[in-house]
């Protein structure tokens, strides 16, 4: 199995398990997850993304056979283009993660266009984190709505030559992006925050198609079994299951 959406690092609002690369690898072993695409959780709140990206690289690089880094870029922070170059030249960056809501820019803004233009120029896979956890649970000082589905739909349509993974959208969010996007050949979804309604995975396979659905855990924010058990118990074919847990991620991220 491949986990298409995970993080390393601490979260300011509550105690979490599996925050280090050692604990993450142990949990992956326990669940039969061979590889994971990981980003810095601390970069959600760090102003200087390069600091979080450097730490991510140092933790992930010795485990390059199992952990693929997705470096986070905030296009509203000064010098982000140079920092992106460091990630490319020093860390071998192939995947970019964006947090438009936590980093406070619209995907349709100048900053959003600039970073998506850069992703296109570098042929990055874009992980678009639409949220992180249930907005009803947020800290009262840090209430961050999910990225609006219409913005996501417009971005994936405008950048039809860029491959997107829409991360941590719930079922209605996935459905809205899929319905509203004018171009969908380049968009994929991971399931970490779908978690319903009953029959959710079967419904996604029926609408967006099993070739667009990827296993994702959103570790360490969520219990990874919510994703792995959802796939295990879904009434889908063996071929669909293989696509979701491995083949789609292998193709999207170029994992050998």
């Amino acid at each position, binding site marked *: 199995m491949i986990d298409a959406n995970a993080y390393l690092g601490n979260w300011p609002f509550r105690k979490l398990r599996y925050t280090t690369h050692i604990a993450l690898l142990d949990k992956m072993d326990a669940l039969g997850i061979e590889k994971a695409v990981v980003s810095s959780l601390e970069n959600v709140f760090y102003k200087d993304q390069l600091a979080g990206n450097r730490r991510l690289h140092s933790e992930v690089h010795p485990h390059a056979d199992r952990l693929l880094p997705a470096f986070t870029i905030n296009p509203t922070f000064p010098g982000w283009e140079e920092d992106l170059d460091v990630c490319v030249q020093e860390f071998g960056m192939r995947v970019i993660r964006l947090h438009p809501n936590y980093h406070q820019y619209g995907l349709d803004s100048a900053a959003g266009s600039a970073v998506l233009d850069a992703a296109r120029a570098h042929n990055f896979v874009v992980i678009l984190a639409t949220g992180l956890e249930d907005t009803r649970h947020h800290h009262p000082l840090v209430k961050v709505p999910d990225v609006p589905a219409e913005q996501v739909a417009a971005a994936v349509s405008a950048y039809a030559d860029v491959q997107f993974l829409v991360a941590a959208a719930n079922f209605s969010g996935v459905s809205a992006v899929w319905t509203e996007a004018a171009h969908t050949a380049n968009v994929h979804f991971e399931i970490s*925050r779908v*978690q319903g*309604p009953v029959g959710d995975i079967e419904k996604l396979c029926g609408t967006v198609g099993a070739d667009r659905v990827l296993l994702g855990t959103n*570790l360490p924010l969520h*219990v990874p*079994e919510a994703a792995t058990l*959802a796939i295990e118990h879904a009434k889908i074919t063996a071929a669909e299951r293989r696509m979701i847990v491995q083949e789609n991620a292998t193709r999207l991220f170029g994992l050998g």
Partner: protein
Amino acid sequence: MIIDVHVHTRLGPDPHGFAYLLDQAAELDVTLCVNSLSPKDGTGMPESPTEDEIRRCNDWTAELAAAHPERIIPMWYLNPAHEDFACRELEERLAAHAGLQGVKLWVAVRCNDPRLDPIMRLCAEHKLPVLQHTWFKVTGNLPGESTPMDLRELALRHPDVSFFWGHCGGDYEYGAKCARGLPNVYMDLGGGEAMNGYVDLLVEHETADHIVFGSDAPGRSLISQLAKVYGADLSDEEREKILHRNAQALFDQQKPANGAAS
């Protein structure tokens, strides 16, 4: 065996969700404690239903319980704002249903309201567990939506009633603290996302003796909510208590009174 204390007939627009849920419950050996917040004809889910709407909601629950007695325990939905009618409705359901049963309260009235007291006295008399919805939303509660702090008041006022603490308070960190030290409350895991550390935190504060499994299906998938339990660091005994033994012990209290209960 699993007992799911928090199941709806329908939550959201999908009319086929409950049929899917019944099939999955049979596969996984799950007993479903079912309440209906909307009438069978799909005429919405009013926050404060009328007497007629309450009757029709419970008619649907009764119909399902009669059709699947081996799988469904009905949880009668009441609106405390109806006062006398709420008690009459419950008494009529008790007279008509011989098996295990309980009560569901949602968002019509905040649960520290004294209008709940006559209902609670009936629940104590008949050993009916009460599933009380609670949520502490940083985005704002509905006017009649109970917080964990409200339920703590109610549970202290009615120590002879057993409560399923709906959604663990929604924000389980608030719920876990509010429920501490209350012997008559059982944290219902149903609803919300399967957050890392959710059940572990509850066990730390409440012990596994005061946690019950709930799903909030069909709006939530049964599997995602079971993952909260299977993803927690629990002993086999703790897992069994949460998944069925705690709820079973509460429903077992009804057996002498109802005779035919199974």
